C-alpha cells in the first residue's frame, strides 16, 4: 500500500503567557495514494490547526507540536527544517485556503502570481512555459484562458476559487489540502467545483485532505472521513460506512444536524452544549458532557481510539465491543 501521509500521535498546543490551549490532541490517521480524506468538525475542533501545522505555517514562538507526520514514507513534516519544508511546499504539498477571494494579492495580475510561484521551484522557467502550464490547469478547472491576465477583483468568487485550485496544482503536488476551500461559495457553485475536483483527481492521481464543517461536502467528494471533536479524532473510516452507520455519538449527532443531500427529508437537530475548555486536561471522554448516551465510565476515563484492520475506528466505550 502506498501511504502518502501517516500522522502519529500528533499534538498541537498554543502557548501564551497565561494559557496553554491544546488544540489538537493525540491525532493519528493515515491516507494512501488516491485517497480523499474529509476532516470534519465544528469550528474550534482543531481541524484547521491540524492542517496548518502539517504545512509548517504555525508561528514557532507560540506553538508546541509533538508527534510524527510521515510524508511519502520518509519525511517527518513535524521535524524537518524550514529549508527542507520550503523544498516540499507546493512541489509535493499544496494548499487551497478558505475564502479564495482573499488568497490572491489584489494589486497583482493572476499571471504575475502564477509566474512567481512557479519560479519558486523552477527558477529558470520562461514566461511562455509557465503560461502554457497554467492554461492547461485553468482548462482543468473550467476557466477560460483570458483569466490569466485578470486582476482578482475582476472575477467572481467561484472563478477565484477555481484559480486558487489551479494555483495549487502548478507543480502537481502529491498531497493537496483544502482548508474550508468551498465554504464561502454558494451551494450551486460549490457543487460544481466539488464535482470538478473529483473529476480532476481521476486524471492527476493526487491525494487530498478536505477540511470542512460540512458533512455534505465530505459525502460528495471524499472516500474517507475523520471526525474531529475538541481537538481529538473521535471517528475515522470510509465515507460509505460512516455516513450510513455512524458509530460515535458525536458523528451521529453531526449527521443529524445537516440536511441530507439526497433522500427523504428528516428532522434536523442541533447538538446541545458547548465545546469543552481546551486549556485544561480532560481525563474523560471529550464529548461526554454533550453526549446523550454517556455513562459513568465516559465521565471518569478516557476512551482510546480503537482501530480495525482497515484503519477505521472510534474513540468511544460504547462501540468498543466491535459491534458493526
Amino acid at each position: 500500500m502506498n501511504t502518502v501521509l501517516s500522522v502519529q500521535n500528533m499534538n498541537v498546543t498554543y502557548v501564551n503567557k497565561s494559557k496553554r490551549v491544546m488544540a489538537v490532541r493525540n491525532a493519528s490517521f493515515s491516507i494512501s495514494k488516491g485517497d480523499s480524506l474529509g476532516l470534519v468538525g465544528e469550528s474550534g475542533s482543531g481541524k484547521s490547526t491540524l492542517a496548518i501545522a502539517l504545512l509548517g505555517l504555525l508561528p514557532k514562538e507560540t506553538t508546541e507540536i509533538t508527534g510524527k507526520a510521515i510524508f511519502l514514507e520518509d519525511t517527518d513534516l513535524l521535524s524537518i527544517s524550514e529549508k527542507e519544508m520550503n523544498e516540499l511546499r507546493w512541489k509535493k504539498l499544496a494548499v487551497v485556503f478558505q475564502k479564495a477571494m482573499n488568497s490572491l494579492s489584489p494589486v497583482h495580475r493572476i499571471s504575475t502570481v502564477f509566474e512567481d510561484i512557479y519560479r519558486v521551484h523552477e527558477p529558470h522557467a520562461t514566461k511562455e512555459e509557465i503560461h502554457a502550464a497554467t492554461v492547461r490547469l485553468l482548462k482543468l478547472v473550467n476557466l477560460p484562458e483570458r483569466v490569466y491576465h485578470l486582476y482578482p477583483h475582476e472575477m467572481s468568487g467561484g472563478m477565484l476559487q477555481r484559480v486558487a485550485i489551479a494555483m495549487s496544482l502548478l507543480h502537481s503536488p502529491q498531497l493537496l489540502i483544502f482548508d474550508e476551500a468551498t465554504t464561502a461559495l454558494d451551494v450551486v457553485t460549490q457543487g460544481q467545483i466539488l464535482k470538478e475536483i473529483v473529476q480532476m483527481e481521476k486524471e492527476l492521481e493526487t491525494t487530498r485532505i478536505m477540511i470542512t464543517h460540512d458533512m455534505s461536502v465530505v459525502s460528495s467528494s471524499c472516500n474517507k472521513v475523520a471526525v474531529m471533536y475538541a481537538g481529538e479524532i473521535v471517528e475515522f473510516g470510509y465515507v460509505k460506512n460512516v455516513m450510513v452507520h455512524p458509530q460515535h455519538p458525536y458523528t451521529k449527532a453531526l449527521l443529524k444536524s445537516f440536511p441530507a443531500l439526497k433522500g427523504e427529508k428528516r428532522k434536523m437537530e442541533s447538538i446541545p452544549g458547548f465545546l469543552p475548555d481546551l486549556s485544561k486536561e480532560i481525563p474523560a471522554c471529550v464529548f461526554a458532557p454533550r453526549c446523550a448516551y454517556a455513562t459513568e465510565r465516559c465521565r471518569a476515563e478516557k476512551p482510546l481510539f480503537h482501530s480495525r484492520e482497515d484503519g477505521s475506528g472510534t474513540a468511544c466505550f460504547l462501540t468498543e465491543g466491535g459491534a458493526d
Partner: protein
Amino acid sequence: MSKYILRRLFSGILTILMVFVLDFIIIKAAPGDPVRTIMGKETDDPELRAALMEKYGLDKPFHVQFVSQLKNMLRGDFGNSIIYNRSVADMIKERLPATLLLGLVDCILALIIGTALGIFCARRDGSFIDNFLSSIAYTLDAMPSFWLGLMLIIVFSSRLNLLPAQGMENVREGYEGFRHTLDVMEHMVLPVMTMVLITMPGYFRIAKSSIQQVTSEDFITTLRSTGMSEKMIFSKYIFKNAILPTVTMFGITLAFLVTGVTLVEIVFSWPGTGRLTLTAINQRDYPTLMGVYMVMSISVAVVMVLVDIAYAFLDPRIRYDK
C-alpha cells in the same frame, strides 16, 4: 476609468467654485467698510468714495460683482495688495520658489524616513525600539510645529551657535555660486528638521499599520505556503499592497504643501508665501490675504485631483469602481 477621472475633475472644479463663493461671502459679510480701509482714516470725501466705489465695482449689485470677480479669477487675477499696490499673483509667484523648496525637501525626507522607520517597526511590533519610536511619534503629533521650531532655534542656534535661525541666505556676505548653495542648505537645516519631525509620524504610523495589516492577509499565508522566500514575499507582495495608503498620504501632503509650511516659515523668517501671509495679517492687507487663500485653495484642489488620478493607475481596483 475615464468616468472616474471625469468625476474627480468635476469635484475639483466644484471645490474651486465653492472656495470662491466662500471668499465672496466672507468679504461681503465682514464688518468694516472696505472703501474706508482703502481711503485711510483721515478723509471721508464723498466724491473720492464714489470714485473708489466705481473703481472697485462696489457700486454694482452683488451678482454683477460676483460674476466680474469670478471672471478676474479665471484670468489669473487675484486682486491687488492695498499696501504694496501690486498684483497678488505676482507677489505669490515671487515667493513660491522658496516655499516649494522647503516643502518639497520636507515631503520627500519625511516620506523616506517615516516609511523606513514604519517598516522597521512593523517587523518588531512591541519591541523596546518600537515602543520608543511610537511614543515619540505620538508626542510629535501633539506638538505645534512653530513651538518645535522655536525650541530647535534655542538649542542649535542660540545655545550651541551651530546653525542659522533666520532667513534663507546670509545677506551680509552675499555669497555666489556653490558657496551660495551651501549657505542656503545651511539655512534650510533647522526649518527642514522641524517640518520633517512634524510630518514624519504620519508616514511612520501608516507604513507600520498597513504592513502589519497586509502581512496578516490570507494571500500572504498562501504565498508562504508555496515556499516562496520571505524576501520575495515582502519586497514584492507585502510592499506593493502596503504602500498604497502611504502614496495617498504623500499625495495629500503634496497638495497641502504650501499651506503646511506657513507656520514654520514664519518661525524661521523664511522668505516664502508664509511670510507674505504674516505681513498681510499684520498690515491688515485683506486683498492680499484673500488672494493668497484663493491661490492656495486652488492649488490644493488641482494637486488633489492629479493625485487621485495618479492613484488610479497604481491601484487596479479603483479603475473600475463607480
